[in-house]
């Protein structure tokens, strides 16, 4: 399966989705002009991956900031991951960033996937 690798920019996050090496990561800042357009390749990739997923997947979110339009798309990403067996979300937040911790908790209440919380 193809690797999806997008470099992060000042308004878009770094995306690394690599089934072979078991790396699934969205990190950095997310405030794109068009969040639906930006996340479409991610949703498409997950759709493909769900057909032949690894036995277990640790999907990592390590976001420094995301805007509200991105939060809707992050929920769409999580909803797509929800149907994959063996899925765990690793939600990173900076140790003094309560808002990012709370955002992760809220997402965990909206989908049926186990979340692990880690600080950096």
């Amino acid at each position, binding site marked *: 399966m193809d690797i999806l690798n997008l470099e992060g920019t000042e308004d878009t996050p770094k995306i690394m989705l690599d089934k072979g090496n078991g790396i699934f990561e969205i990190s950095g800042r997310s*405030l794109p002009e068009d969040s639906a357009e930006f996340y479409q390749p991610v949703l498409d990739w997950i759709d493909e991956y769900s057909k032949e997923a690894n036995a277990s997947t640790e999907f990592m979110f390590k976001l420094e900031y995301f805007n509200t339009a991105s939060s809707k798309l992050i929920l769409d990403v999580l909803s797509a991951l929800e149907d994959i067996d063996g899925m765990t979300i690793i939600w990173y937040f900076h140790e003094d960033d309560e808002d990012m911790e709370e955002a992760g908790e809220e997402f965990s209440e909206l989908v049926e996937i186990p979340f692990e919380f880690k600080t950096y």
Partner: protein
Amino acid sequence: MKYIFDLHKTMLDNHLILVYEGEFNQEITKSVLAMAERNMDSSGEESSVKRKVFNVMVECLQNVVKHAEEVSNKHAAVFMVGKSDKEYIVISGNSISNENIDGLKGKIDQINALDKDGLKELYKSIIKNTEISDKGGAGLGFVDMARKSGKKLDYEFVELGDGSSFFCLRSSIERL
């Protein structure tokens, strides 16, 4: 040339550290954010305050970008950041059609009537049911601004007389 000094004095009197007037788009949003961030970095602002201010600025700016094209008059839009000893102020002003005033007012009043838990519930119910609009919004901007600032959103509509009004929005973020 006195207006130059007057403008300078108005900025000082209102503790404004940044004023931008004109066209709004994603590139300008990024530049304005970068300037405000540099200002907060150079003054050694607490990272938690910095994050909240950044958050409110993004939602405010992207709101203006999304709605800037709706009314075509000479009053495009303005964005300002103020900073005093106790708080940061994030202000935007943009033209809106008078027929949209009631809807906008209702939305903000609803948000201002809610406490922290109420805002969290509203946020969750919107995010579950919303679709991204053709303008790219999730309908969560004001809720998020209220949550991150922890304060009521101040607003005012200034009648422009051509069927439109200037919508002024002001949020404040406490410094620790």
